[in-house]
């Protein structure tokens, strides 16, 4: 069956944005690709990993985004075309390296290096709405932003050429609506990459001395801008002298076209779509600004294009009669959330003083009336998830301890604890590894009268990603804390990617699994390992650790992600049933109201707990938590 590497040259295939980026890298002859998983970026490396052996390239899940970028840069310095991929939050982790690699350059023998960053406007699967475009301006490197999936592939391929031509890495910005959409893409040829890796040791690549290199980088930017001024990725469509000019990029482009159609403004509104965003193609924009008296800038999150359009207009010589600029500054487009066709329609309708109604007032009223029937669908841990049991034990330990223990956590499926159907034990939560880091800080406050026990939480993948330095810091600076590592054996939330603690690489080769308990012990921590399904022992151990103030304590709660277990074992361990004699029904309700496994509900008629057989995965943990011992688990023979 054809795959991303073998789809024929010239064929049109339905590809996801991330797959298109992967195909673009293959068409460019990329030989080395690395990344750290994060929605909405994960399928780029995931897709490349599935064909790596077939094409003869190296693809890896790295320990974090900084290392991913560093290994990819090394391959580029050795002459190979390389790619690093991450989500917006991951770019922050990689930024230290990238703010120096821009100055060092990748050299005249370097392979192109493309850093793909997937932003998440609306924060569908993120904790923030960071806008990556500023990073390009900060680092003085080129940034391309595709407006559809065909461009995602074509721009990725071009980004490698740009990178090699200008000897600097190139940023490609994607976003949720590109990465996670699919459309037909016309494909190009995938060459057999044959470059050999070699480094010329007469060379030295470093940012030192920075000021002259910074000056050279700016001079380079001017040359990149020249190329961008004539790029076909910046294109105009509309009347010669539009009454209003929309300037947009990315998702703003299709949304603008929808809005123009909805309001029948095709004859009066023109659309300038920009694909090369940094260095800003000022002359292209100048040329269109002189043709109109009104401009609406349509872009997601920050006013990046808008700021540069305003700067362009501010030069009196270039645009004699300055047009009116509408956008975020004027309040027509929001500074937050993703752009939608309706948002652009509303902005245009306001500027043109038009009335727009998608349906009839009557229908809208009826749709509003139906709200009384629509209830929310809260997210929760899967049936059989070890985290539900871990937080259950955590809550029990904290309650019995009576000292108001503080819980600091980070990013993984266990983040669901702060959502409506979590246990709400988590007090402080920000980013990868910050559970360990902030726990460390709270644990250093004793001299200021802080007496509450401190529990930091990390997952297995976030432990390796960013928690280890924090744990070292805790040991060195004598923090009084317990780190709980929820080890489910995989990077579960983003789709089961391996990490240094697993025994397989991205390309399914055997790997040495880094032993996290040995690592923690080597750092000087007291380490205990428990099965979270043994909730009583887990809670008791945690209470002991909270009382032990002899150095930093680590509790590893180890049980495989249920989804992964099911994929591998393809059978349920137990059948689970409720003993109606013992069940106290809604007077108790502990299993469905407190533990809240979606595999258990309440049968109103009999007033008994009821196993949802279609949902239950037979993990049997509810048998351990039922106060009346009314849930019976029986091994499946």
């Amino acid at each position, binding site marked *: 069956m054809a795959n991303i590497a073998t789809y024929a040259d010239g064929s049109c295939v339905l590809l996801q944005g991330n797959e298109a980026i992967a195909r673009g890298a293959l068409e460019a002859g990329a030989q080395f690709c690395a990344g750290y998983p994060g929605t909405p970026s994960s399928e780029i490396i995931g897709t490349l990993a599935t064909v790596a052996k077939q094409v003869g390239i190296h693809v890896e899940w790295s320990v974090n985004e900084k290392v991913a970028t560093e290994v990819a840069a090394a391959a580029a310095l050795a002459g190979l075309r390389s790619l690093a991929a991450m989500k917006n939050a991951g770019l922050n982790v990689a930024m230290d390296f990238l703010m120096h690699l821009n100055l060092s350059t990748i050299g005249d023998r370097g392979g192109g290096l493309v850093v793909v960053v997937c932003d998440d406007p609306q924060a569908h699967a993120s904790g923030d709405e960071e806008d990556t475009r500023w990073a390009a301006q900060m680092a003085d490197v080129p940034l391309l932003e595709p407006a559809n999936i065909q461009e995602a592939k074509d721009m990725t391929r071009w980004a490698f050429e740009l990178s090699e031509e200008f000897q600097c890495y190139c940023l490609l910005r994607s976003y949720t609506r590109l990465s996670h959409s699919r459309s037909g893409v016309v494909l190009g040829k995938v060459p057999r990459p044959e470059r050999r890796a070699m480094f010329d040791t007469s060379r030295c690549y470093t940012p030192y001395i920075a000021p002259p290199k910074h000056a050279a980088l700016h001079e380079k930017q001017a040359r990149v801008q020249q190329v961008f001024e004539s790029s076909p990725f910046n294109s105009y469509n509309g009347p010669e002298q539009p009454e209003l000019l929309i300037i947009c990029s990315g998702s703003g482009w*299709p949304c603008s076209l929808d809005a123009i159609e909805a309001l029948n403004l095709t004859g009066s509104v023109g659309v300038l779509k920009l694909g090369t965003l940094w260095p800003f193609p000022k002359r292209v924009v100048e040329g269109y600004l002189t043709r109109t008296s009104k401009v609406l800038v349509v872009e997601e999150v920050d006013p990046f294009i808008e700021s540069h359009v305003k700067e362009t207009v501010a030069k009196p010589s270039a645009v004699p009669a300055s047009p009116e600029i509408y956008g975020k500054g004027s309040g027509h487009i929001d500074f937050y959330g993703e752009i939608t066709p309706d948002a652009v329609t509303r902005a245009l309708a306001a500027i043109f003083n038009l009335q727009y109604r998608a349906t009839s007032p009557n229908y809208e009223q009826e749709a509003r009336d139906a709200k009384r029937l629509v209830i929310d669908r809260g997210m929760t841990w*899967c049936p059989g998830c070890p985290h539900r049991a871990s937080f259950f034990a955590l809550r029990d330990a904290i309650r019995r301890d009576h000292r108001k223990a503080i819980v600091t956590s980070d990013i993984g499926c266990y983040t669901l604890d702060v959502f409506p159907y979590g246990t709400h034990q988590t007090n402080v939560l920000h980013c990868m590894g910050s559970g360990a880091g902030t726990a460390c800080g709270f644990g250093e406050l004793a001299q200021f009268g802080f007496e509450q026990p401190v529990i930091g939480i990390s997952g297995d993948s976030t432990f390796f990603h960013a928690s280890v330095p924090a744990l070292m810091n805790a040991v060195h600076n004598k923090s009084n804390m317990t780190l709980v590592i929820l080890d489910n054996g995989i990077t579960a939330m983003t789709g089961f990617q391996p990490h240094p603690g697993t025994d397989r690489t991205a390309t399914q080769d055997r790997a040495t699994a880094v032993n996290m308990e040995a690592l923690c012990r080597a750092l000087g921590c007291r380490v205990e390992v428990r099965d979270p399904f043994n909730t009583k022992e887990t809670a008791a151990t945690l209470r002991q650790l909270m009382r032990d103030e002899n150095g930093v304590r680590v509790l590893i709660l180890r049980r495989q992600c249920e989804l992964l277990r099911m994929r591998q074992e393809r059978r349920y361990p137990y059948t689970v049933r409720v003993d109606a004699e013992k069940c106290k029904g809604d007077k108790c309700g502990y299993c469905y109201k407190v533990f809240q496994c979606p595999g258990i509900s309440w049968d109103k008629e009999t007033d008994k707990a009821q196993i949802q057989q279609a949902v239950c995965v037979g993990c049997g943990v509810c048998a351990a938590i039922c106060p009346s011992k009314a849930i019976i688990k029986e091994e499946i023979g």
Partner: protein
Amino acid sequence: MATSADPFNLIICGVGGQGNILLSGLIGSALIRKGYHVTVGETFGAAQRGGAVFSSVRISQKRCYGPLIPDGQAHLILGLEPLETLRILRKYGKPDTVCITNTAPVFPIGVLSTKEEYPNHDQLQEAIRHLSKAAWFIDATNVALQLGSKIATNIVMVGALIGSDQLPLARNDIEDGMRDIFPPEAMELNSRALQMGFNALRSQKDKSIV
């Protein structure tokens, strides 16, 4: 064969794990093979966690549209779960929207934990009917269970979709796509699921005047 509108906006909605993305891929690929411009948009942040998910499919002979469907512009809603059909219909529906909905509810965690009540079955169907030009309800989960595989529910629903004649696709267009994603041993079951969904909708359609 043209669609009744251009662009034609289809939404497939349901609960994480019901096979939403598989369906939008099957339908999208089949339409691409027929030469249509197709863009499929997906939400799957909530996919593994029981959250509401939906895919948008925008079909055109003119150009490649963006993945987001404007409010009140869905022509067809394929609901794998009735509450989700109503949720989507309230935002994207218009008086001539057509809905095809699986009757089997998937209870949200708020209902299972007795904090909320799932809407009354008849009221839910009535509200869906009220907000659409035509609404068909398919007992897809039961049909799939009769075939011995609950997981085939989504294929039953695709069969119903084809049976509605709302898309320029025939059963064999979907079967061609299924061969690309299912192992050969799963084809017989899924072909039957497709046929049974098709029949289920056709038998309702014959009785109605829509």
